[in-house]
């Protein structure tokens, strides 16, 4: 495969896995948790680097996952101590992020880990570090990692589909049915962290948020069925990856930035034109719109 194809494939994998996991972020009303985790994952990666002294996929993955779970846990703890939920989110992620930045700028100081790279991602370098996989041949490391993560995410979603559905839409019912809601909360946070770490190399810490939230929010405007929302959101993710790449080569600018921009454009399209929830339908058929939204 050519250099360009690898980049597009990697970006599409990011779009797909983020899009699918993002659906539950929106439905569980934890969109800003994605923002928090994407920042704190930086700390996990830095510490993993300090411990192992190398930029290895597994070490970073474990560090990132632990940081993500730590974030979810600390936010929960502060909230149970009567701090407003969004305030505890703000305190936890800024503090952990600050620790990460200080560690980078004082002790690590390595080219592989400059903050800029971590925050913006460098998808153009991805095809240069490859691993040999039997039957397929040389595959870029990040692409292989993303494929594994995607399979993992889809596996967990299908395996616990019913549980995800109930815990997302009606946590009280789920608890009364004996579904371990807390366990699923932390399992979900783990999945979000895994996806974030895997996408980290490609799109960087902050723009992962765009890939996680925006396609899912767009899909939410087009459908009321969970299955369709998952499919649409994954599709929008891939579409924004491809459009983003195209815009980036056209304007010769950052690929991850353009991908985020593309997700925004897709959302705007749905926001204006969606038959049920769009602005234009509200204007053309105010009666139907009112029926949908007021009742």
């Amino acid at each position, binding site marked *: 495969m050519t250099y360009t194809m690898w980049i597009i494939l990697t970006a599409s994998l990011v779009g797909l896995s983020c899009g699918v996991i993002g659906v539950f972020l929106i439905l569980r009303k934890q969109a800003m948790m994605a923002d928090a985790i994407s920042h704190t994952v930086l700390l996990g990666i830095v510490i993993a680097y300090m411990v192992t002294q190398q930029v290895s996929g597994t070490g970073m993955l474990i560090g990132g996952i632990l940081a993500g779970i730590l974030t979810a846990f600390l936010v929960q703890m502060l909230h149970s101590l009567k701090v407003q939920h969004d*305030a505890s989110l703000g305190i936890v992620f800024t503090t952990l992020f600050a620790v990460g930045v200080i560690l980078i700028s004082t002790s690590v100081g390595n080219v592989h880990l400059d903050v800029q790279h971590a925050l913006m991602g460098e998808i153009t370098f991805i095809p240069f570090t490859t691993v040999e996989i039997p039957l397929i041949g040389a595959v870029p490391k990040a692409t292989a990692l993303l494929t594994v993560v995607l399979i993992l995410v889809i596996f967990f979603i299908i395996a616990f589909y019913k549980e995800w559905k109930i815990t997302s839409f009606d946590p009280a019912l789920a608890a009364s049915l004996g579904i371990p809601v807390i366990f699923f909360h932390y399992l979900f946070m783990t999945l979000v962290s895994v996806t974030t770490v895997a996408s980290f190399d490609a799109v960087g810490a902050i723009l992962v948020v765009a890939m996680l939230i925006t396609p899912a929010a767009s899909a939410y405007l087009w459908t009321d069925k969970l299955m369709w929302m998952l499919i649409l959101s994954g599709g929008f993710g891939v579409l924004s990856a491809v459009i983003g790449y195209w815009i980036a080569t056209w304007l010769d600018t950052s690929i991850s930035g353009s991908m985020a921009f593309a997700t925004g454009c897709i959302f705007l399209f749905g926001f204006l034109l969606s038959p049920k929830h769009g602005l234009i339908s509200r204007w053309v058929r105010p009666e139907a719109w009112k029926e949908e939204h007021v009742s």
Partner: protein
Amino acid sequence: MWSTLLHSNTIWVLLSTMILGFAAGGIGCLAYWKRQNLMSDALSHAALPGVVVAFFIIQEKNLLLLVIGAAASALLGAFLIQWITNASRITEDTAMGMTLSVFYGVGIMLLSIANRSAGGNQSGLNSFIYGQAAAMVRSDVITMVVLAGIVILIIFIGFKEWKLYLFDAAFAKGIGMSVRSMNVLYTIVLVTTIVIGIQAVGVILMAAMLIIPAVSARYWTHSFRNMILLSSLVGGAAGALGTWISSTGSGLPTGPFIVLVSAAIFAISLLFGKEKGIIIRFIQFKVQQRDSERNQFVMDKGGSQ
């Protein structure tokens, strides 16, 4: 140690982060009671494209003009969040997450174009992302101090109005106050604080300067007036102390140290706070437990007789 502190530029930077922290602590209280803590995070990210566009237009780094650009794009972000939340079934936190990440993405797009063009790399635009208080020159400091001073003035002069607006909007309307114009004023003050802060502490950590002092102050007082005062003082102290620590070593970033100092103050408040601190609550719990045990004992005795 004193030599670095007495170095004239450090004094200026210290002064500006202190005043910035003071203003951010005050406005953070308003955001806290409006339950919009994370709005500051969204708006500070949303300011990035404005900074870069302003730089494209004027082709030089003039803090005042960059701040105006930043404010324009942050206000656009605030408007979009409001609009998306009102006009569709997307919830506010989703709208905030989308706005912050998409605006930030556009900012990065523009920034990499600006960095490619001649002179863009030297403009120090990158310092807006991570914050670099030490790179501020005297004119930047003066711009910051004046704007922060105006913000502080607005908060303290309109103290009574803010209180009504936050806690009893219906009554405020009843006595003829315009809640809508208070809303506009609140957004403008919030955006101003954020955009002057991002030069010093960066887009990402600006949220901490608004959120942490307010939450910490909440642990020491029930009165709104004292909370605003305390929160401003905490913010100012964290700003000054953080800047001082980062100036003792070379290459230490300012923003993260300010955040760490505020986080330390928060941890102390959480533990020892007079109102609802962990230790106080534990003692109250124990006292109550003992009292109820004694009552139980008395009742048992009374019952047996």
